[in-house]
Every structure is written in structure tokens, then in C-alpha cells.
């Protein structure tokens, strides 16, 4: 494995993992995230871990960034102008007419990213089959250019109706705009997405124009600063749809990075289960505010092709990682009807859980775990000295109104309810794919994931739990294993047949042509298919030379797996998807645990959910685990604590993983 660095910018911390190919060393680092100028936090963690010599040896710097996402969250981006087809000025504001909360009479959508005065129409019309119904009116574009100049527009999105079927008019608009002297960034909808649905494509194109303004300078500055420190390798940026983009591509297509936040953890899980040979796994990443889960079948990342951010749909591939508001900071409370509830509200970084001694008084999942002995006081990262007294004091007042006997019962309830929330999210993912979670391995990671492994296994009746090395930094490990990936897609609605496949092949050639043909690239062709009359599609891999019968068989098998039946109806091709993937040379597989103190062995008072009582139990340093041990116990290491309940056995497994399985009895 070549020397590489992965840096992931999270909401609270910026994490780094470094693998040094010369010394074989693994180093990890953690610095506070600096939201106003995220590159400062990134450079701080680089400076803390890697010297000039190491940086010079480093072949890849893989970066997970939230700059694009934050530009949207804070609405700080370019002043965007929009050119669209006559009659469709308000698509961005009309949306799809639905509400985020269907029961909220007063719900109003957030203001559109482009104000109405900067949304301008030009005459000219293309039909759904790509024929030109009316030629483009060049004067309309010139008038728009004048308005944009007067209004100080610095990026323009061009979205014409049916441009997915014929991009000619969009290209003409761009040329006319340039000829009229517009010098800023231009985003064309057919280049950004190529898929139909004008609201979704407009949003995606506008988001692209909006964040490009922030992303380009940020990545440029970071690249420069790294090079000043001796870095001579390639800067890569993680992609929402898995893998990583090269610097130039990330600068040109920043919208493809916006949903990349939780991807690295799923990617690391996929790589791990490939090595372990597990056909079915559930990634279970528990952080401070959320639980992120993904279903990994045959070591493949689950991909979807339309995501959403801040209520804005994005026609961008993304790894289907589901998030629910259940994490260490989730607040427990008793509602007006007298039931104990957990989350989705989180205590956040400030004040944090009651036990953090920062003035928080509401009990959280972390407080409950501390109260039950699952977290050993004084042993969490970030130098926080946990107070079990404050945790107990916050939990106790919930007992009477919820009808529970004492703080112990409240704490147990909080953990069980949080685990049930997580299990629902897992079931949501598995049911949709027609998979029974009972056959899955739960891969538990993130700061609090290993606490929940056994609880989740019980809720889901899952086969076993795997806790990877570096569980608390596992997502950053995933960054280092990314391939370089580019993708493009185009809507092409045709009845499935050999003629349609030939046409799809031509479209694919064009798309691959646009993606370039870098050395070592592997081409992947997928088709979105559906029964004619349905709306929702399934994506099916197509290999060169396959005929319609083979494609139909693959679709039928996938449909049957998901829905338990298949139909005799004719199939329809909807979208052609081209992906070019360059595996990083020498990408390693498992990363051994970094050196460092695991904490001390000792005896603790630990709750057993199986026994529904406290037990005298051992706290075992991770490296001291040499033979299988039976719970209840906790395994301690620098970035996480693993809880093993009675009825489970933990042992060291391949690549430094902990394997927790039900005790045979």
C-alpha cells in the first residue's frame, strides 16, 4: 500500500488517518473542525500528525469535505442567474407542490436559490423526443445577459425543457451568453444531470452553479497549502456516489460531493466485509447526533441516483446511507402522554450530555450508557472527564412521570429505545431490498457504535457483530481506500429490446467519451429499468454483448428479490448510466490498530440487559484480548468502547477485528 492520508471533516472533529508505506505505521489524528475556514482544521490535523518527509512520500491525500454542503446550509454561494424555457420561469419555486411536513398547515418552502428577478425565459422549444418545435430566440439570451450584468450575477445555470433529449439549445444559449460577454461560471443542465424531471434537474444545476464558487477556491487553497508542506501526490475528494474525484473533476462538478458525508463509513464497511468474506452486512455507525446505516450485499455499496439536501432534490448518484436522529447526544424525555422517548433532538456539542460537566441537564444516550457502566468514566477522547453523578441526576427525574422504578430502569429504557430506533432504520433498508436482517453481520463503528452492537444484534436477531480496528476513526479509514470514479447519465425512455440496447450502447459510448479514458480505468454500464407503466426503476448492470433476454432476466431476479414477485409486463429502459473507475494502486485492505494505550484493565459495575441487573464485570484493554471471553464485559481502546452483554462471546478475528457472537448453549 502506498503512503496515503485520509482526512474527514465532521461536524465536531476533523479526523485524519495516515498509512505510511515505509514505516508501516498507522497514525490517527483529531482536531476540532473550524467551520468558518475548514482548511485550517484540515491543516492543523495534518501538521499534528505528518512531517514534511511523510507528506513528500504521500501518493494520495483523500479528502472528505463539507464545504459544498455548508455553502448550501448557510446559503453562502454565488449569485446565480437562471435561463430557462419560456413559460417555465417558476419551476424552481413551484417545486412539486408537496410539504416537508404534510400535517403542517403553515409550512412554507425555503426561499429559492435563485430569486425570481434572476430567473429569465427564452423562447424556443424542444419536444420530449428531441425534435425542435420552435428555434431558439437569440435576442432573449442577449437580454438575459444584460440583466445578469446589471445585477452582478457571477454564475449562470441554463436549464431548458427536454434538454435531456436534445442539448442543442442549451449549448446555443451558452455560446450566445459568452458572445454577449458573460465571463462567469456556466452550468448546463444536460451536462450536470442528463436526466428528465425539470424541477430536480433545475435544482441540481443551480446547486452546481451555487457551490462551484466556494468549492474551487477552497480546494485550490488546500492543494497549494499541502504542496507548500511538501506534498507532491494527488488530492482526491470523496464523491457522494462512492469513490473519489480528482481535484479538477471535483472543482468542475462540486454537486457530486455534497452528499458524501456518510459515505466513507459505508465504503470502509464494504472493503472490510470483502476481506472477511461476509455476503451480507449492515454498517452501523453511531456518532454524536445520528445513526447512519447502509446495507452491504456482496461487498457492494448500495447506490441511489436521486438524493436530497435541505429539501432540495439532487440528481446525483449517492450511496444509500440512511440516517436517523439517534446518537450519543440524543436527548431522552417524557412526552405529554407519559411515554419515555429518545431523540431525534440532540444535546449537540454545547452543552452536550449532562455528564460532560458543561451545564447540560437533560439526559442523553451517553449519560444512560455511562450510568450503566458501559462507558468507563474518564476514558473518552477529547479529554472530557465524565461525571457519573451528573448522568444519574439527569436520568432520575424521568422515572416517576414515565412509570419506571428508578434511574437504572430509565437508563436501560433509553438504551433499548435508542437501539430500537436504530433497528427500525436497519429494517427499513433491508426490507426495501428484500433481505432478512437475521442473516446479516452488524459492523459497528463510530464513537458509540461498538456500545450498541449487542443491543442491535438482539433487536435484529442478527448473526454476529464485527467491530473493526480503529472503530472510532473507521470512516477516515474508508477514505484511504477510495477508487477514482467518474459518472455520467442520460434519460432514454425506450421499450427494452435489442434495438434499445444498441441505442443505449451508443449513448454509453458518448458518455464514456465525456468521462475520458484514464489509464487503468474500468468501465461500468448500468441501466435503470422498469415495467412499462411503473414509475420507479431498478438499476441493473449490463455487460458488453448482452441481449435483451439476459438483461430482462437480471431485472426479474432483482425485482423478485426486492418485492417477492415478478410480472409478465414489458420492460422499459429509462436511464443509461456510465461509470469509469480507476482502482487506486496498492489500496490496502485492513488497517491494523494504531499504537497507543488502550486504557487499563479493571473491574467495573456493568449493566447486563439480558440479566436486567448490574454485574461485576471486567474492562479489558483491546490488545489484552487473546482468547475468547464471555460477556458481560467491555473492551476499551482509545477511540471507542465495545460492550459485550451476557450471552455473547468476543474474540479476536481476521485483521484485528473483534467478532462478537452468541454463546452456544
Amino acid at each position, binding site marked *: 500500500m502506498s503512503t496515503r492520508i485520509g482526512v474527514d471533516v465532521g461536524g465536531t472533529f476533523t479526523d485524519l488517518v495516515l498509512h505510511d508505506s515505509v514505516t508501516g505505521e498507522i497514525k490517527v489524528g483529531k482536531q476540532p473542525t473550524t467551520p468558518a475556514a475548514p482548511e485550517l482544521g484540515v491543516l492543523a490535523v495534518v501538521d499534528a500528525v505528518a512531517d514534511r518527509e511523510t507528506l513528500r512520500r504521500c501518493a494520495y491525500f483523500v479528502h472528505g469535505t463539507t464545504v459544498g454542503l455548508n455553502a448550501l446550509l448557510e446559503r453562502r454561494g454565488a449569485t446565480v442567474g437562471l435561463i430557462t424555457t419560456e*413559460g417555465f420561469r417558476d419551476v424552481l419555486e413551484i417545486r412539486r*407542490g408537496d410539504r416537508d411536513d404534510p400535517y403542517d398547515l403553515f409550512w412554507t418552502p425555503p426561499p429559492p436559490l435563485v430569486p425570481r428577478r434572476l430567473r429569465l425565459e427564452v423562447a424556443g422549444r424542444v419536444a420530449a423526443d428531441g425534435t425542435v418545435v420552435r428555434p431558439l430566440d437569440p435576442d432573449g439570451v442577449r437580454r438575459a445577459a444584460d440583466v445578469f450584468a446589471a445585477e452582478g450575477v457571477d454564475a449562470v445555470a441554463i436549464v431548458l425543457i427536454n434538454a435531456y433529449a436534445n442539448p442543442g439549445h442549451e449549448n446555443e444559449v451558452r455560446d450566445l451568453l459568452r458572445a454577449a460577454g458573460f465571463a462567469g461560471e456556466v452550468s448546463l443542465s444536460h451536462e450536470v444531470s442528463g436526466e428528465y424531471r425539470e424541477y430536480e434537474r433545475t435544482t441540481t444545476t443551480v446547486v452546481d452553479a451555487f457551490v462551484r464558487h466556494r468549492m474551487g477556491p477552497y480546494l485550490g487553497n488546500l492543494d497549494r497549502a499541502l504542496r507548500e508542506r511538501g506534498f507532491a501526490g494527488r488530492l482526491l475528494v470523496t464523491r457522494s456516489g462512492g469513490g473519489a474525484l480528482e481535484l479538477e473533476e471535483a472543482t468542475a462538478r462540486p454537486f457530486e460531493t455534497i452528499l458524501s458525508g456518510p459515505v466513507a463509513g459505508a465504503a470502509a464497511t464494504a472493503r472490510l466485509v470483502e476481506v472477511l468474506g461476509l455476503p451480507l452486512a449492515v454498517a452501523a455507525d453511531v456518532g454524536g447526533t445520528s445513526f447512519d446505516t447502509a446495507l452491504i450485499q456482496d461487498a457492494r455499496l448500495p447506490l441511489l441516483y436521486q438524493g436530497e439536501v435541505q429539501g432540495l432534490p439532487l440528481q446525483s448518484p449517492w450511496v444509500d446511507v440512511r440516517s436517523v436522529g439517534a446518537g450519543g447526544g440524543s436527548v431522552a424525555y417524557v412526552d405529554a402522554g407519559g411515554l419515555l422517548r429518545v431523540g431525534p433532538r440532540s444535546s449537540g456539542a454545547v452543552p452536550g450530555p449532562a455528564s460532560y460537566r458543561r451545564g447540560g441537564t437533560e439526559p442523553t444516550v451517553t449519560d444512560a450508557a455511562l450510568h450503566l457502566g458501559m462507558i468507563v468514566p474518564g476514558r473518552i477522547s477529547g479529554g472530557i472527564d465524565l461525571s457519573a453523578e451528573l448522568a444519574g441526576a439527569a436520568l432520575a427525574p424521568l422515572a416517576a412521570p414515565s412509570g419506571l422504578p428508578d434511574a437504572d430502569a430509565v437508563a*436501560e429504557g433509553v438504551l433499548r429505545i435508542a437501539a430500537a430506533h436504530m433497528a427500525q432504520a436497519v429494517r427499513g433498508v433491508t426490507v426495501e431490498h428484500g433481505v432478512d436482517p437475521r442473516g446479516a453481520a452488524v459492523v459497528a463503528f463510530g464513537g458509540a457504535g461498538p456500545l450498541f452492537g449487542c443491543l442491535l444484534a438482539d433487536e435484529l436477531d442478527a448473526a454476529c457483530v464485527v467491530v473493526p480496528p480503529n472503530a472510532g476513526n473507521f470512516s477516515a479509514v474508508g477514505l484511504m481506500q477510495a477508487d477514482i470514479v467518474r459518472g455520467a447519465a442520460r434519460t432514454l425512455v425506450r421499450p427494452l429490446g435489442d434495438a434499445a440496447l444498441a441505442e443505449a450502447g451508443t449513448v454509453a459510448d458518448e458518455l464514456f467519451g465525456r468521462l475520458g479514458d484514464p489509464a487503468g480505468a474500468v468501465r461500468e454500464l448500468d441501466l435503470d429499468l422498469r415495467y412499462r407503466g411503473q*414509475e420507479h426503476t431498478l438499476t441493473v448492470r449490463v455487460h458488453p454483448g448482452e441481449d435483451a433476454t439476459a438483461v430482462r432476466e437480471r431485472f426479474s431476479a432483482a425485482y423478485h428479490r426486492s*418485492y417477492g414477485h415478478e410480472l409478465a409486463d414489458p420492460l422499459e429502459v429509462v436511464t443509461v448510466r456510465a461509470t469509469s473507475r480507476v482502482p487506486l494502486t496498492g489500496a490496502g485492505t485492513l488497517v491494523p490498530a494504531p499504537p497507543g494505550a488502550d486504557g487499563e484493565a479493571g473491574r467495573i459495575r456493568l449493566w447486563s440487559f439480558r440479566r436486567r441487573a448490574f454485574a461485576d464485570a471486567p474492562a479489558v484493554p483491546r490488545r489484552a484480548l487473546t482468547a475468547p471471553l464471555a460477556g458481560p464485559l467491555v473492551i476499551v481502546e482509545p477511540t471507542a468502547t465495545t460492550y459485550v452483554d451476557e450471552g455473547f462471546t468476543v474474540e479476536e478475528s481476521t485483521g484485528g477485528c473483534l467478532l462478537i457472537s452468541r454463546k452456544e448453549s
Partner: protein
Amino acid sequence: MGVVRTVFTDPQPGRGEGADPVTTEIVRQGLNAAADHMKRSLIRTAFSPIIYEALDFAVAFYDADLCMLAQAPTLPAFMGTLGFCVREAVEGVGGRDALAPGDVILYNDPYGTGSHPQDAAMVVPVFHADELVAYAAIKAHWLDIGGKDPYCTDTLDVYQEGTIFPGVKLYDAGRLVTDVYRMILANSRMADMVIGDINAMVAGARAGAEALSAIVTRHGADVFRRCVARMYDHGEALVRSWFAALPDGVYTASSVIDSDGVSGVPVPFGVVVSVEGSRVEVDLTDCPDQVPGPINCPLPSTVAAARLAVAFLAGAGEQPNEGHFRALELVTREGSLFHPVRPAPCFMYGIPADHAIELIIRALGDAVPGVPAASGGDINALVWWGNREGSGAPWADGAPHPVGQGASPRGDGASALMYISESATRFTPAEVWEARNPWRIERLALAADSGGAGRFRGGLGLDLSFRCLEDQYLTAALARTELAPWGRSGGLPGRPNRLTVDYPDGTTGDYALKTRIPLSKDAVVHLRTGSGGGYGPPAGRDPEAVRADLREGYVSEEYARRHHPHAFPA
């Protein structure tokens, strides 16, 4: 035929005592998630855009006593309506004792579903260790199940509205009853799509039943029942705590429905809402006897309308269960608009139901601060069908359309949102329409100047123009084309709904409720949806807000000067 009081009481009070609160919360979450899985399975496998885009369906679980365990959020208008139809469906096939594992009951009698025969329900009994523990039910809109037209605004009795299945087994112990299946197909103009939707519904209901069964198995039937009883008590306590915050009193409002679609005369009605402690009573007896045209609203939908209106204001947001319904009482008069009896036609039941929702909200405006002005009004549905040129293949499509929302003291009304009773519904993209149907969309725009003026402006309506590229038929189902959306506290009314057609021969038509309008190639259909009413006197509008509206083109200078002269100092 007399006055009927509909109350949902606890069939076995006290059963929830002693249930573990933590397990109760876990069961509650599990049921809500299972209902959601049933919903997603249906959306992803359905064939009709009315199901997968308009979400015109309901999915829910009921316990063996027909109390609602959980319902997934879809059309709010269907909240809790399935209980009536599960009861009728089970009785139709001979009662509980006639049920076996693997059964699927089909039921679409409007008086039990609350809607038209197109809304067909599938009910699957759930067994645990040979004992009936629950039902999984799905009601979804089929594109066509007979009737005089695919979508009707002029029926004279329920028998003209579609073929009725009064509770029959579509699957008997897991085996398809082909006689029933063939009956369905023989009665549909869109048999292919209906087959697809039947498959989707059966698969969805069975998936739901399995998920529910897993929950019962995990906790055991006894613990499950106790936890469910406690869950209902919890839901009831929650809703009562909302209602208790409403000031006691009797609140009234009245309005007029444009027409019943047949006789052409206006239909006036009134609501009386009484709040006493944590109990709310909605009285809908002040209305005409059932009317000749199809705007009669069967009891289940009247119940849903009353629940929704109160829930919107009382601060709902929880996925409801049976307990949520116990604090609301409904009073209706048998044989009337809001409680019709067979054979009154009820195809357009949504018109009075939706109107009642906004009227109840208007009445409660005297009790609850911050109630908004009227929205553009339901339902603006256009239903289209024909046979494609060349292939002759039958096609159909149809959907409601967004309207402007009423302004409130919180601010301007939102523009172009679906009516609140169908608020999860999504509007189909023009590009999808054009790829699927013989149309060109010539305009899809916010209507400047349409919002009711006020201190806060009503949300804008929508202007939408369809050019027909082939001959086809259209049924127009527009309500509130006469009644302008009312303003509140001095705000001015918005614009009502309107549909006009420009025919290629130069003539035009103006329609509200009209069935089977023949449209020739190159006819252009213009839909102008209603806007929201304004809130507060227009003279009180912030001059900066007037200027911003002007700058962005939401209002014209003429509108701004007429309603807000104070923003233009001499």
C-alpha cells in the same frame, strides 16, 4: 333518519395498565415503521401515477377489535378512515370466523370506504399461532373500475360510479379467486394498469402483515396487546393535552359549495365546533339533505375531515393511532350531505370534505390565534384519457394541482402547494408528462397579482396550459370556482379556481365540474388555480415587502399602487 353521534371509545378500558413503558414505546415505533414499509413497497411497485405520485392511498394496521394500530402518512384526508372499511370487509365475507391465513379481502363500497368505488381496499388478516391478532389494510385509487366515465362529476346514484365489491375474497387461503379477478378486469377500461396495482397492493399488504407478525412474535401476543392498549391510552392523553389548551366555547362558521355538479344550485352548510375541557365536538348537521349530484360525503370521510381540521390546529405531527381519535366527537344527520345513505352518489365526496376542513379551521379561528385565511381550495383535479394515435393503446392520467395558501399572522401564504388534505401529494414534472402523454405544456408559472392583498399576502395560484397533441377526453373536477378564498382580519380575498379551453376552431369553454369534455388535437387547456386570501388590512403591509414583491414580479405596479398606496409616498 336522525342525528348520529360518532365516538371512538376504549373497548377494554384498563387493559394497558401494567404494560412496560419502554416496551410500549418500542412496539409503537415498530408499528409505525412497519406501516411505513407497507407504504414504500406500494409506492415503488404501483403502476398508476395516482398512487406513486399523488399518493392517493392509505395503509394502516388495525387490531382484532378494529382499533387502529398505526397508519403511514400519505393523504391526510384518509386519516383513520380504514377502520370502517375493515369492519365492513370482514362482515362481507362472513365475519372473523370465516377468515384464514392467506386471505385477501377486496372491498370498495363507498359507504364503507368513505370515497368513490375507484378507491379499493385490500384487507389481510394477520394470524399469530392460529389466532387472529390484527389486519393489514391498503386502500388505493385504481385508474378505472367501470362506472359511467373514468372520472365522474355528474352521477345520479352510486351504481353509476363503478363496480362495487362489497367484501369478497380475492385470495382464499393464499389461492387467487380467479372469478373475482376476472370480474375486476372485465370492468376496467385500464385493466393492465389495474392488474399492476392489484399486484402492488397485495404484495404491500402481505409485506405489512409479515412485518406486523414479526412484532407480535418478538414480544408475544399478550405483551403486544397490553403494550398496544397502553399506546392507545398514551395517544389519547397526548391529544387531550392539545385540546385542553383550546379555550372552551362554541365556534361556528358557514359557507357555500358552488354546485353539486348536477342541479347547478349552490349548497350552503355550516359547522359548529364545541370545545369543553379536553373534548372537542364537531357538529355537521347544518347542511342540506343528501343532494342529487355526487358531492355527498360518506360518514368515514366526514370523520376524517373533522379529525384533520382539529389536528392541524391542535398541533398534530405524531403518526396517529386509535387513541388519538378518542377525544373528538362528531355529530352528523343520517341522510344528509355529510352522512348520506345508499344510493346517494358520492364520487366527488372530497369537495364537501375538503371544504369542511377549511371551514372548521375558520370557525376555530375565533378560539385559536394565528389561524390563516382561506387557501385556493380543493381539488382542481383534471383527469385525462384516450387512445394513442397509431397504436390505439388506452392511456389515462390525472392529478390534483397546487393552489396558493392563505396568509396568516406568521407571514405571506405559500404559493402553489397542494391542498392541505392532500399535502403529501406531488405534482408531476412537465417533462414526465410530455414523455408519457400526448401533451405539450406551454406554461407552468406562478400567477402574479393573484394573491389576496393584506398585511400579509395570500400565496399565488398557478397558471398551467396544456396543448393537446392528439384527440382526447378530459373530466374537470374543480371546486370553488365561484367562491373566492376568504381573507381574514381585514385581508382581501384571493382568486377562485378556473378552467378554460381554447378550441382550434376559435371557440372557448369555461368549466368547473364537467365530465368527458372532448378535446381535439391542438385544443389548449388553461388551468388557473386559486390563490390564498390575505391577512390583515392591506394598508398595514410593510412598504419594503411591497417593494420586494414588485421587484420580483409577484405583483404588478398597478396591484401594488391599488392595494398599498402607502408604499408609494407622493
